[in-house]
């Protein structure tokens, strides 16, 4: 699933901006959606930020600030309902707490090797769903050194 950024919104200050403070997203850029969460605060896409690529943690961005370009769902996504107010479309392994010490994202946040390796593998499957947009994403990030350093080897594996 590919989305394109149309607005920059600061969720804490609740204001629209011309540019993202941290450089994680930019208007016009295309992003591969890693998962979608539905909850009390709306719908969020998880994306790899421009500024750090895989060096940085993936971030959650508001769905309404992005336009859907490709609605192809990756083959590893499932619908997971967490509670009455929270669901997600996400790689199955990320939703299965029996695989993790705590939950996938908690283990990932603690840099547990199994979670880090799983993230990479599932990301490859996600990116493979929209191979035809990879060149566009690379071109848009020609000045993002960390993104290119960390993403290009992985994208190369996907292609």
């Amino acid at each position, binding site marked *: 699933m590919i989305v394109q950024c149309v607005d920059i919104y600061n969720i804490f200050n609740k204001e629209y901006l011309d540019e993202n403070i941290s450089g994680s997203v930019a208007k016009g850029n295309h992003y591969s959606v890693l998962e979608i969460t539905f909850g009390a605060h709306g719908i969020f896409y998880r994306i790899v930020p421009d500024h750090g690529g895989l060096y940085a943690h993936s971030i959650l961005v508001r769905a309404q600030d992005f336009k859907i370009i490709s609605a192809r769902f990756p083959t590893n996504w499932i619908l997971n309902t967490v509670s009455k107010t929270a669901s997600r479309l996400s790689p199955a392994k990320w939703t299965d707490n029996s695989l993790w010490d705590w939950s996938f994202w908690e283990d990932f946040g603690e840099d547990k090797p199994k979670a880090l*390796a799983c993230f990479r593998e599932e990301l490859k499957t996600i990116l493979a769903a929209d191979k035809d947009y990879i060149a566009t994403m690379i071109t848009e990030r020609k000045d993002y050194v960390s993104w290119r*350093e960390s993403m290009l080897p992985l994208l190369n594996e996907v292609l």
Partner: protein
Amino acid sequence: MATGKESTVKDMAAEIGLKTASLMRDTELYIDSFAARHRDAVNVGKFGAAVAGATLFPVASTISLGKYIILTSPSVQTGMKKVFNSSLKQAGVDSYSREDLSRYATEATTLVGSGISYAQFGKKIGGAARTTLNLAEKTVTRVKEVSPVTFQYEAGRLNSGIPVDAVKLRNPFKSSSGESALGKANLAQAEKMKVELELRQIFTKDGKLTEVGIAAAEPIMGVEYFHESSPVYKSLLGRGRIEDWHKCAIPMKTKLHVPGKEELFSGEVHVYKNLVTKEIFYDLDYKIKINKLDIHTSVNEFLNNISYTWRPKL
């Protein structure tokens, strides 16, 4: 080409390194003095489960030292645990002071906290070391995209200068020379050299976040998706609605000063924030993760120039 004996070599190397470090430390500091200070102790325990590394991350795992966490390898965990237990037995106590733990952390990570260090030690003990070295060199490239160093706060504790209470090492840093890290693993020397982080825009003097820092925070995980038994979930339950809490990241790019040089690094601060009340929760998992370090300084020099602040400057 792998021989299948790498693990054994690494284990041996790790243990030798740790024993040496322990011996040096014991000689220099006298283990009896540890006992005298153990009023300020934290328990040694909670050794994290040693997860045999996936192919991609062959040397990374976790050791928890009370509240402090050092990322290192399963081999080091085993070695450290032995050294800790042995020293505790000698001292006749069941805990170490925080300072002692930091000493161990410094020594252990400097000595054997990386695949390269394993390889160097392995080389000295001969045999299949060459293979280990080759593997380690590959690892340098293969784990490049993950955090090499993480600074972490101790909950609720103020800091002076660099806001760190522990240093996590996970990457096999590449040493620029064959010089033993042992000679440089000297806390006194390290303390003389001050590392200054230009973090004033993000941190207040007491180590919390400035308004600028908070405004730059981006949600990375919803706590409602966490395991209900996890420490974070339990801590935040009852502090407003759980769905309002998110783990957030604040990207940062700054310079780390070592004498005569400046090293650029990028990283991010992790902190929990309530999206509705704007409350920041500093008491758990508040940390700086350095995502990328453009090392132009030799690794030993870099490590020895990190200074630790374990007590508040009153």
